[in-house]
């Protein structure tokens, strides 16, 4: 589903990703953990072209991201993204936030887009907030709307960029619960996160990154209970 080969990303002289190799299978839930500045968010953002690739290749559902002939907008429709700061459209009601891309990008009919949006908002537990503007929602509610908005394009993959890092601790759970449901339904997910509990419980595989490289990867059990690498051990001893 996602093949990453020798991925390098440089911001000027700053070498952020140094040769990432990674294969993510269909229906797999992969959590990427690591200290800040390790390149995990950049890695995620490369997967839907929000960052350009300096060298190497990424293939998502047979689309080659490093090929300039690839229509990046098609890739993005197949890979939904959820951001740390939600990025909801403030001038659109919750339901219109969810309906915008289906209407304008997928060109679905208004009735169909609306039915879909209502279904998704019900799924994330926000059916009663449909006609509210984002400014009147709590952080947890905003992030759940953002998840519904990304799902509205029927993505085959969901990318989560620290989806709970901007939330108060007591409302992190409501967002994680929605993500867990999604994982159980078989969505392919790549989650950059600091929620070790979530990674341990939901992930099929955990990737530990440091200084632009994948240092270690394995099942949650392997990574959390018996990390092999010194840097993984050091990181986990600080966060667990």
């Amino acid at each position: 589903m996602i093949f990453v080969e020798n991925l390098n990303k440089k911001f000027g002289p700053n070498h952020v990703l140094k040769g990432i190799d990674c294969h993510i299978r269909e229906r797999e839930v992969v959590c990427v953990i690591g200290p800040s500045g390790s390149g995990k968010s950049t890695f995620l953002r490369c997967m839907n072209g929000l960052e350009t690739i300096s060298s190497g290749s990424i293939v998502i559902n047979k689309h080659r991201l490093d090929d300039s002939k690839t229509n990046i907008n098609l890739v993005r429709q197949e890979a939904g993204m959820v951001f740390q700061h939600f990025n909801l459209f403030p001038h659109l009601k919750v339901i219109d936030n969810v309906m915008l891309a289906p209407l304008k990008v997928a060109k679905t009919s208004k009735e169909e887009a609306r039915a879909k949006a209502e279904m998704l908002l019900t799924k994330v537990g926000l059916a009663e907030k449909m006609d509210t503007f984002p400014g009147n929602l709590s952080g947890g509610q905003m992030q759940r709307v953002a998840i519904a908005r990304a799902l509205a394009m029927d993505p085959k993959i969901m990318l989560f960029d620290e989806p709970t890092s901007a939330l108060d601790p007591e409302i992190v759970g409501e967002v994680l619960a929605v993500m867990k449901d999604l994982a159980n339904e078989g969505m392919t997910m790549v989650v950059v996160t600091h929620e070790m509990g979530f990674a341990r419980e939901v992930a099929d595989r955990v990737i530990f990154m440091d200084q632009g490289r994948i240092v270690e990867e394995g099942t949650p059990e392997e990574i959390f209970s018996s990390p092999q690498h010194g840097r993984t051990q050091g990181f986990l001893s600080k966060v667990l």
Partner: protein
Amino acid sequence: MALYFGDLLPYSSLLLEGLWTALYITLVAMLAGSALGVLVYLGKVGPGKPLSILCTCYIEAIRNTPLLVQLYLIYFALPALGINLEPVWAAVIGLTLNNAAYTAEIYRAGFESVPHGLREAGKALGMKPGQIVRYIILLPATRNVFPALTNQLILLFLASSIGSIISLPELTNAIMSVSNTTYRTIEVLAVGGLLYLGVSALMSLASKRAETTLFRWAVGTHV
């Protein structure tokens, strides 16, 4: 000094017609100029290098020359090229082109004030750059610069008085002709000034009203 405002009464309809002309020219130039201003800004920051240079030159040329000179050029120089414009068209075009350069700069501030994350969210949904501008950025940007646009509207309304020099029958032109007929110069200037003041104040008030209804969504948000 005695003031005789009564002498102006027979000319009140002339003054009001002048006011109406000033008002509708201002509104047309504001709407058309703002739309053009957004396009000029987008051209300036867009990927096309020649267009970007052209838009920058346009903005700088307009902002660094007097409106009076611009209007003269449109009204007196264009006929040399075979283009003859009625005063009202010359004024509308002149004010629109002038306003567009200023609104392009206002919108620059507006677009830059919208958080980058909104653009990224649009991109991540597969939206094209034009769709992102139209459906995601434009309204929050407009909201952020609405007070500046209101200011520009009032400046434009007052600047419409320059139309009088190309014999456009707007308010200042009406004031001058009433003054010439009645010799009640001070009285008619006072009345005319009050008309400008009153309408400008109304514009300010209407804009505040419009702000709360147009941007209901913005209550409690900081974008």
